[in-house]
């Protein structure tokens, strides 16, 4: 897959992983790995980039005597997801057209 395309797709995947509830590193990777392969070292720069772009925020919460970082999606992050959904609705319909079975008109 095109590197730039994959990079953009992983960004929205991470946002989707924290869309419904705040999540943390380990859980994000576990949830994403059901759909797309991602390693811990790939996720980290994505989280940093999304935070820099104000698409998510980070806060620490105590868990089992240690501090865990939780990631929370922002309004801008939700808007980004919505934009992605709209964009791909069109791509999916084009895809359906392209792979449509050839109708034999004899």
């Amino acid at each position, binding site marked *: 897959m095109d590197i730039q395309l994959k990079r953009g797709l992983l960004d929205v995947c991470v946002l989707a992983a924290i869309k419904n509830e705040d999540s*943390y*590193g*380990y*859980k994000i*990777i576990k949830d994403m790995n059901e759909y797309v392969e991602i*390693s*811990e*070292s*790939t996720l*980290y*720069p*994505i*989280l*940093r*980039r999304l935070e*820099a*772009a104000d698409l998510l925020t980070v806060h620490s919460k105590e868990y*089992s005597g*240690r*501090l*865990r*970082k939780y990631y929370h999606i922002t309004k801008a992050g939700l808007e980004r997801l919505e934009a992605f959904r709209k964009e791909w609705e069109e791509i999916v319909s084009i895809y359906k057209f392209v792979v449509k079975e050839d109708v034999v008109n004899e």
Partner: protein
Amino acid sequence: MNKYEFLAAIREGLDGMEKSDIDRTLDYYREIIDDKMDNGLSEEEAIASLGSVKKIIADIRQGEAKESADTTEEPAPKAAPTEPSAEAAPVGRTSDEAGDILRTCARVLLVIVGIAFWCVAVSTLIAGVVVGLASLPAFFSSLVMLFTGNGAQFALMLGGALASAGIGILMTVGTVLAMRYYKRFYKKIRAALNN
């Protein structure tokens, strides 16, 4: 390798980066290892599942470089500055405002040099074509000399014609090549300035 050794190796590999960035990175990996252990893995298994320390450091450094290219004004360290952009490199690293002024000056200079180059190139090209064309009547004259039995003058004319043709070709081809190389050079500088 235990957790302490692993994190120490990461810290060492990230040497040179901002301390806050390094600490943040270590927090991230420490947390992931702890979570993996809470989910049944042993410390060794958790660390092994993260891959080689070398690859982790490479991925982090690459990610940081992309991030700084996206969010800041300064050029990413991986943008290899080639010889011609030696002028552009220091320009990109000064503070925002001074950098902008210098960059504008550099751009203006580039335009002036460009205009000068094209003036010279076009003149040389035209001159080359003219000189080359001048060889044609010279050739004919030399043939006339040949047929009127003027051996010496034939040789002279022929020599002049050949010289004219040769110089004309050199000038034309040379200018075309120079134009091509200039275009490449210009693109590189422009790209370096715009980063």
